[in-house]
């Protein structure tokens, strides 16, 4: 096994995983607070990528005409804010229309509603940008750096910087602000929180706001890193992100980040498994990349078998 290649794949995995983690945060926050698998979350992310493309178009940003230096940073920040804001509003609207009326309904009713919203958003994306793959203008300069033989680009750094800032910010908000405390209280016991004077509906709406805003941010850095998007992207990435949230222990923010990075790394490492027809024995038919989804889920299942509440999830004793 080539050790350099391994490190190289790790770098790829960590950057992809950071994006997964940002999306996973939205899943895990919503699940933590209302125990709903918000299937629409991945599609909010997809809508976010389309918003970013549209904003770039409006600014006339292309790979060649993009400014450099601080004006580029400013424009990117502005795009980030617009994307986050629109996604966040979208998230809140979805919560208001599709989930809030079902707050006291049987557990599976909001799940079906979420699936419905996910289908709606997918078709909105399809109507908006068509069924083909849409490419992002490569506005951020691609500079490749080397540490020894391992390469990484300036975009990788940007992805990690944005992701880490947002995650740290979220962690700080949840831990130290009044709203964060209210969120934790609602997650722990909705009725008790309401009795203590927490406006539960408002806190849930804020949770959706923040979760969707993170998806909007993930959308921009996804576009800068991978340069293309499609109306089905939300589904694929949403699945991975949700898996990441479960892997880390659903409802646990640090767990979601860890899970995201882990999934990114597994996905990258899976590509190293050789094609069995080529090696004539070891490996999988068509190579590991074709199997990466299966491998991710196998790892997930194995982890859950031994730690049924995810990596960092608390093993809550069952109460009667």
């Amino acid at each position, binding site marked *: 096994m080539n050790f350099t290649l391994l490190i190289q794949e790790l770098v790829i995995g960590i950057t992809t995983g950071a994006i997964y983690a940002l999306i996973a945060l939205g899943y895990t926050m919503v699940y933590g607070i209302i125990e709903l698998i918000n299937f629409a979350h991945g599609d909010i992310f997809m809508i976010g990528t389309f918003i970013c493309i549209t904003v770039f178009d409006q600014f006339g940003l292309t790979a060649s005409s993009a400014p450099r230096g601080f004006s580029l940073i400013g424009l990117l920040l502005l795009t980030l804010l617009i994307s986050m804001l629109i996604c966040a509003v979208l998230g809140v609207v979805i919560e208001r229309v599709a989930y809030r009326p079902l707050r006291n309904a049987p557990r599976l009713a909001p799940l079906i509603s979420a699936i419905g919203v996910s289908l709606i958003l997918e078709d909105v994306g399809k109507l908006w940008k068509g069924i083909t793959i849409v490419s992002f203008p490569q506005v951020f300069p691609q500079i490749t750096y080397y540490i020894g033989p391992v390469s990484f680009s300036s975009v990788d750094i940007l992805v990690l910087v944005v992701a880490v800032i947002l995650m740290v910010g979220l962690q700080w908000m949840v831990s130290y602000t009044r709203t964060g405390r209210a969120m934790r209280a609602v997650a722990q016991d909705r009725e008790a929180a309401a009795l203590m004077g927490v406006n539960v509906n408002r806190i849930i709406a804020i949770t959706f706001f923040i979760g969707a805003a993170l998806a909007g941010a993930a959308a921009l850095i996804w576009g800068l890193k991978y340069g293309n998007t499609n109306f089905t992207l939300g589904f694929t990435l949403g699945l991975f992100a949700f898996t990441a949230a479960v892997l880390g222990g659903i409802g646990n923010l640090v767990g979601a980040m860890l899970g995201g990075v882990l999934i990114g790394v597994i996905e990258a490492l899976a590509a190293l498994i050789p094609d069995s027809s080529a090696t004539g024995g070891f490996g999988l*038919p068509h190579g590991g990349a074709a199997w990466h989804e299966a491998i991710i889920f196998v790892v997930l299942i194995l982890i859950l078998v031994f730690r049924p509440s995810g990596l960092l999830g608390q093993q809550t004793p069952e109460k009667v």
Partner: protein
Amino acid sequence: MPTASMLLPTRDSRALLIKWIVGLLVPVMVFTFVWSGEAIINNVLLGLINPGSTALQGPVLIEAAIFIVVFYATVIALTGYLVAADSGRRRTIDLWIDIVVFTLVPLFLVINFGLVVGAALCAIIWPAYFFVRRRVRQARHYTPPPPLKNLEVSDAEQRAILMSRATTAGFWFAFAFAVVWLIVDLIYFFVGQLPTVLLIWVVIRTILLPIAGYFLGRLGGAVALRRTLAAKSNGSKSDGNVATNGVGRRVSKKRQLESLSTTRAREEAKDLVPNDLPLRSTGAQRFYLILIVAFVLFYPVLDPFLFGSGTAGRLAGYGDAGYYVILALGLNIVVGFAGLLDLGYVAFFAIGSYAWGIIGSTQLTNVLGQAPVNPHILSALFWPMLIVGALIAAFWGVLLGAPTLRLRGDYLAIVTLGFGEIVPIVFLELDKYSNGPNGIVGVQSPSFPGVDWSVITPVPYYYLILALIAFTIFANVRLRDSRLGRAWIAIREDEIAAASSGVNLVNTKLFAFGAGAFFSGIAGAYHAAKLGGVSPDNFSFGDSVIFLAMVVIGGIGSIPGVIVGALAVYAINQLLLAQLDSLATDPSNPLYAVHNAIVHFIPGFTFDNIRNLIFGIILVVIMIFRPEGLIPSARRRREFHAIEEDHEIEVGALDVVPGAPGFETEVRVE
């Protein structure tokens, strides 16, 4: 106390008779005269009078005749039953509105849009109707009228009153129907559209119908009375006496034991005669069941009369809808009975499909290098493979269920989702066995001596899927009422309580996964045979989600609900939305204008592009209007609307007293 002077006719009885006879006569007349009922009858008669003159001959003629007799006899008996079973706590006008919404609206939709699309539209309209009705009642502080006086079926006299009511109802219903029919036929006769031969039939019928009505009304009354329980004395701890009937009938040991089961007690409680919700009582459900079975069984014969040409295409469509019903029923075991959220159910469907796909095509020959069985008997292998495929799927169900045993709630969901993703990838990438992305083609259809299974004759497939569905429903009902089924429901309600009551969690959960997978294996084998091939594209996460939507929309845990849900979702998704574009090309259709308006803003717009959008909106709307599903199970309905609407008028005398078997579910607060 009821006295002999209360025997007919009293004011109450007259009101009851008018209420039900008018209520039922209108839909029957619409079916007979507006739709194709009379056409079927006339064709049967002409076929009987001079064989060879019409299209109806031989077995087809007999089938149509049986359907006609069963249909009208059941409706007349139903009238008798309903009159005997009604306690008068629904206002006449409310009842008529209900009947319009539940019979006339579907009839008109079905006549105009075809069976499945009509049913799908009903699935959208009904939840909206329930929602509006609930809101209106809340706003108007609706209180149901008091029950009819002296209605306690406790002594012989009261039973005699109910019986005579039922008899009169049957008689007058049939009489009114005969008179209306006579008038209609006379008009036809004078216009010259009625063959003179049929005049004899008109005379015979007009005499025969009231007589038959008298006896069928008696039958309905007898059904109502047989389901009678003694009214329970309020508040006393007499729940053990549910079995020992107050009338003094001897009650068998078996029946006593049955009554001890909570579900049974609940079910029977609903059937107290007189009933506050006669249309929903289990006695009435028996009649509906007869109607539905007769309709479905003889459908291939009736279809040309009901919908005109194109029978073969429609039947093929229903054959496809059928395996969704089996899949939904199978998933209902896992999700509905045992409460284990399964997001990867499609995996077992894929396993079942590939099981017959690989055996029933040349694929196995390619893998092994030689044919394992004589190719001529290959298609006959379908029958054993139906079971073997199901068992293979069940085996994988148990195997994949094993790692999830320690998991709770949504961790379970994600693991099953994982399996749902892994299995299709395995089939996609192991192309040596599964032919990879191209899928398997040339899968044999079943063979059965004397039956032509070619693609142009969908009738065998129709009856095959009907038999499979019947088997699945039977197995589901038996499983639900078995010890195992009660254990499933117990772990759904409370795992810890169930475990401490001696339910073996491991076995029970594994059985749930196995049983659920078993039925999807059957559906898979049928799917592969009907399609003549297996494609890996048919097994995505989206399909798992659709199956789950069928179960939840229908009413989780409720067998009739899940069947309706499966048909409704299939119809909406596959038929209704697929037709929108062709509907929009017709200038007389309102969609035409809508389409033009949208094309004005979005060039190149087609409804096909927003299929999922509309489907998604429908899902959300149905869930908001009716979160407990179209036909919720009795248990869930109680939980969900415990404080609202129908419950204030659900048989008051049987409200469960503290300590009785059903008490806890009744007071449970979610």
